[in-house]
């Protein structure tokens, strides 16, 4: 096999991790059939992707990101002794800093990555993005950084209702009253700590851009998507590729200003009425709709693998607009042996090298204590 690629982010709930779409993209890369072995890196024995035999060939559990970089390096060294890994594609926000800090050491054991720098990764901390946008004249919703609930009154006075409250890395809520804002403040503070950001709400159509830049910060591919349907959390459940030249130009400028390296997701909202695009977030990883971009003609996860290995990449100039994705939840049935193996040993080989197909039969578990 030519490519042994490890991918994180295997859990598909109502806000699916990006790893699954990344793996599906890799699996469909022309000429890679029989040349690709996918090593899933998961955080929990019940992460859904572990039990999808068409996605991963083998799976290993990682320590939680909160355990730090040293713990991640230690575990990847252990895994590397059991299986070959040429490239890792980390796809979760919370783990990016650890992987970035681990990169020089992982390189010495033959594991390569294509990642943004530490300072670029920190841009997805929502309170630093507003400063960047201000300095580079990029339209973004007016944002205030909040440490204490007493600052809410000032935020409401400045930004009005509905007020968007966001945790530093994850989770956002819209508050329509002061009491609601106070309640969400406490929820977000308890879950993610401070600071929080308070943001004005820009009503309009949501969408995003998936991008990949090479080590010289040259964008090698980019696809724009407009959300067609969202979950009750506001997460995209369906979307369509669009030739939004303005968003693509703005994304190119942002990534060039940042001297970006590696994958990125830029999230925008186009204001209703004016149509003006506002940047909401930059995420230092592929989005969970990377597979849509691959099917529209730009397989950026496969390009990331080649770039990480130091190979030249030529991506398609354009992509097909009007390609739609709709998410679909599916029950996967697996055996107790399979769950027991990943839960107790932290590893599971679904397919030995060179073989495809395996699925157990049995009862899925109700709870994991």
């Amino acid at each position, binding site marked *: 096999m030519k490519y042994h690629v490890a991918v994180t982010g295997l859990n598909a709930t109502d806000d699916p991790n990006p790893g699954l779409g990344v793996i599906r993209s890799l699996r469909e890369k022309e000429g890679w059939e029989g040349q690709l072995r996918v090593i899933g890196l998961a955080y929990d024995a019940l992460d859904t992707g572990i039990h999808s035999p068409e996605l991963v060939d083998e799976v290993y559990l990682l320590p939680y990101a909160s355990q730090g970089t040293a713990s991640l390096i230690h575990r990847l060294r252990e895994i590397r002794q059991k299986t070959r890994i040429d490239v890792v594609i980390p796809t979760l926000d919370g783990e990016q800093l650890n992987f970035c800090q681990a990169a020089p050491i992982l390189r010495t054991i033959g594991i390569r990555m294509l990642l943004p720098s530490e300072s670029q990764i920190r841009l997805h901390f929502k309170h630093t993005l507003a400063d960047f946008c201000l300095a580079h004249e990029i339209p973004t919703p007016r944002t205030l950084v909040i440490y204490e609930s007493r600052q809410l009154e000032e935020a409401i006075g400045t930004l009005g209702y509905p007020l968007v409250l966001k945790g530093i890395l994850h989770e956002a809520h819209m508050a329509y009253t002061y009491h609601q804002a106070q309640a969400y403040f406490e929820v977000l503070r308890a879950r993610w700590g401070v600071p929080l950001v308070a943001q004005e709400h820009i009503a309009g159509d949501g969408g995003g851009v998936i991008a990949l830049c090479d080590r010289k910060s040259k964008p090698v591919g980019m696809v724009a998507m407009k959300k067609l349907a969202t979950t009750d959390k506001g997460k995209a459940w369906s979307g369509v590729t669009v030739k939004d030249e303005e968003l693509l130009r703005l994304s190119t400028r942002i990534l060039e200003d940042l001297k970006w390296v590696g994958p990125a997701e830029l999230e925008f909202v186009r204001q209703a009425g004016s149509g003006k695009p506002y940047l909401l977030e930059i995420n230092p990883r592929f989005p969970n709709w990377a597979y849509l971009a691959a099917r529209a003609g730009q397989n950026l996860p496969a390009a990331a693998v080649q770039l990480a290995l130091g190979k030249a990449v030529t991506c398609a100039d354009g992509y097909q607009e009007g390609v739609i994705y709709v998410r679909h939840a599916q029950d996967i049935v697996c055996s*107790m042996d399979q*769950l*027991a193996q990943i839960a*107790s*040993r932290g590893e599971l080989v679904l397919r030995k090298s060179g073989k495809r197909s395996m699925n157990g039969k049995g009862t899925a*578990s*109700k*709870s*994991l*204590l």
Partner: protein
Amino acid sequence: MDMETIKDLYFNDKGFIFDPDSGAIFSLNTTGAFIIKQLQKGVPVKRVLAEMKKDFDVDEGTAQRDLREFLDMLAAFGLLAKAPA
């Protein structure tokens, strides 16, 4: 203390346990896995204690206390077999 028998459980040598009645899943440490293995083989509790002292670097009092606590925990989670009426 010598009467406990374990329910028919799914378990592997790494301490993964599945109770097919309740659907509950447990993860045991090495000592717990050792005890369960012995009980599943039908080894009486007194013998389990002796085996523990043989296999682990532990004094009689500590082993006895740990075993008792573990059996109580198994009982609390409903993992011990009911005594015949």
